[in-house]
């Protein structure tokens, strides 16, 4: 989380809870162009490295009786695989690597973001919106490719009484297009809010009387954030599976 330097001279309580999300060039100063290596770049790369370390290096021995790293890798594999299979069925297994990519990237980025002074790429809407839009576009295109016009049956609730169906179709249509919005804001919002709250408590630590409470509160928030990091990655992945199921089996 970003260092707190400016504002100290103003005296009193100064909070800069959002400074930690600033995007800055990783090497030297200057403007941020399209291809500038920034702190976001570094931590995204570290997420990729962590994924590689866990899943590739961890399983490199191909041991029949797994080591600890291999156990974790197999656990992650089984966790996502089962999720995809349970929700999307056998046809969904084809898209397992895609979903596993999303899960591993988000979970690694979230957990790396919990390291003090680190940067969390998933706290940025730029990242989550791209992730969510990718899911949205994939699912929509896949739905039409697989089912043709029958994919529109997703919006036509055949089990409802006929007069209600147009109304429901509008509601379904709106909810369908709101999906990427909620999908992306949920992840970034949760991560950002947690980190910002920790930062606010850290600001209170400047007052001597409150600082013990503040430290306890930061510890508690940190524990909560550990949970949130995993749960948000899980939620993002499981929603992706649910959307994918809609594309594969559009009937209600």
């Amino acid at each position, binding site marked *: 989380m970003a260092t707190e330097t400016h504002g100290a001279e103003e005296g009193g309580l100064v909070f800069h809870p*959002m*400074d930690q999300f600033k995007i800055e060039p990783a090497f030297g100063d200057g403007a941020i162009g399209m291809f500038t290596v920034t702190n976001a770049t570094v931590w995204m*790369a570290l997420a990729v490295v962590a994924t590689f370390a866990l899943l*590739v290096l961890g399983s490199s021995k191909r041991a029949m009786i797994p080591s600890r790293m291999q156990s974790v890798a197999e656990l992650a594999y089984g966790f996502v695989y089962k999720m995809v299979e349970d929700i999307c069925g056998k046809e969904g297994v084809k898209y397992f690597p895609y979903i596993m990519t999303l899960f591993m990237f988000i979970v690694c980025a979230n957990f790396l973001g919990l390291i003090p002074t680190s940067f969390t790429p998933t706290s940025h809407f*730029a990242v989550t919106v*791209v*992730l969510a839009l990718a899911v949205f576009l994939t699912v929509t295109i896949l739905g039409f490719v697989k089912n043709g016009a029958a994919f529109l049956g997703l919006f036509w609730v055949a089990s409802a009484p006929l007069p209600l169906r147009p109304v429901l179709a509008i509601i379904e249509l709106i909810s369908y297009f709101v999906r990427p919005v909620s999908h992306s804001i949920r992840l970034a919002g949760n991560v950002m809010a947690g980190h910002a709250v920790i930062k606010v408590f850290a600001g209170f630590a400047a007052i001597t009387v409150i600082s013990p409470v503040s430290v306890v509160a930061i510890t508690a928030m940190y524990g909560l954030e550990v949970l949130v990091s995993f749960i948000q990655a899980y939620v993002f992945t499981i929603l992706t599976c649910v959307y994918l199921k809609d594309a594969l089996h559009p009937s209600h």
Partner: protein
Amino acid sequence: MATETHSAADAAAAGPGMPQLDFSTWGNQIFWLVLALIATYLILSRVALPRIGAVLAERQGTITNDIAAAEDLKAKAIEAEAAYDKALLDARAEAQRIVAAAKAEIQADLDVAISKADAEIAAKAAESAKAISEIRASALENVKVVAKDTTKEIVAAMGGKADAKTVTAAVTARMKG
């Protein structure tokens, strides 16, 4: 966000309140994100996932085989136990048969020996009885002779003259009594 207390200058320097809404960095982030996702996807789909899947499948196969082998061995063990029980029962029956045969044989021997001994005893008893009766007869005869002699002597001693005939008749008459 409610606690934003930036001074105007700070706010101006920091751009919008939320760095997330600073769209000037979006292009940069999206570019690197796409790179990171492609890299992750390639790592996973080319190396990690096939390998882990193979390891899991192999382990599942090994476990299945081991369980099958264990069941096989268990069946064999049950079979062996049944064979053992059967052998035990057979042996027990055989032993009982042998015991019964031995008992019967011994009984037969015993019966033969007993009957033989009974016969011998009976023969001996008969022989003894005969000897006793002979002895008794001879004893009577001797008693008669001794009595006659004694009587003759006694009569002679009394001064009488012992008539052999009379003496014999008297002794015989006495001995009957």
